[in-house]
């Protein structure tokens, strides 16, 4: 029997699903590495000199352990939240059936992703404010991990989820047309 050749969209979605898995695992590994490095730096202060990929927080740790912990905690939370968003993307992609794509659960997942992106933006603002304050106090820049584009992404995904919801309504009307 001849097998059906996947369409371009099906192929793209499969590739996106693989990429989403890679991103999810990547962020989880990054978060794990930072957490382990932080744990080590609590015992061995020298470890703070290269916490993750050359990130030197030794002076910050010397300045205040509480601020050092908060700085690392905010980075960790951001990474975990980003990996969770990718996990939701994997869930959404696995729920999409191209023969009948407009499902309420997919629309709800998209809405959920937009809310999580908005939450990431809030944490990013907190992290940026903390970093800016540290620069002012210590005079040293430790690198800014937070980025503001997640608010743009959140808005975009939210709009897509609302359009998707209308698609669900139209599809259900179409299904109930005899």
């Amino acid at each position, binding site marked *: 029997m001849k097998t059906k050749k996947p369409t371009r969209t099906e192929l793209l979605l499969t590739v996106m699903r693989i990429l989403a898995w890679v991103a999810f695992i990547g962020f989880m590994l990054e978060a794990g590495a930072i957490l382990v490095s932080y744990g080590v730096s609590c015992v061995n202060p020298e470890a703070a000199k290269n916490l993750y990929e050359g990130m030197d927080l030794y002076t910050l740790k010397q300045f205040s352990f509480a601020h050092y912990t908060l700085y690392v905690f905010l980075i960790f939370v951001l990474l975990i939240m980003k990996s969770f968003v990718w996990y939701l993307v994997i869930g959404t992609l696995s729920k999409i059936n191209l023969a009948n794509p407009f499902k309420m659960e997919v629309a709800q997942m998209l809405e959920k992703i937009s809310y999580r992106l908005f939450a990431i933006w809030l944490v990013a603002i907190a992290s940026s404010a903390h970093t800016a304050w540290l620069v002012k106090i210590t005079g040293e820049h430790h690198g800014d991990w937070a980025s503001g584009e997640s608010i743009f992404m959140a808005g975009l995904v939210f709009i897509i989820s609302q359009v998707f919801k209308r698609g669900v309504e139209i599809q*259900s*009307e179409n299904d*109930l*047309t*005899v």
Partner: protein
Amino acid sequence: MAITVNLDVMMAKRKMSLNELSEKVDLTLANLSILKTGKAKAIRFSTLESICKALDCQPGDLLEYSRQ
């Protein structure tokens, strides 16, 4: 909905079963059931035409508008 489908009334008048109508109008039992129970959101002119033909009636005999 303000539009009521009187398919069951017309079927009873013509003494026709759902299976029989399904065969005559070439519509699945599931779709006819959606229409009969008033769950349908829309009806195609072609479907209406074939039901009217099978039941020998007018669209007005099948559809009724009531102010709610």
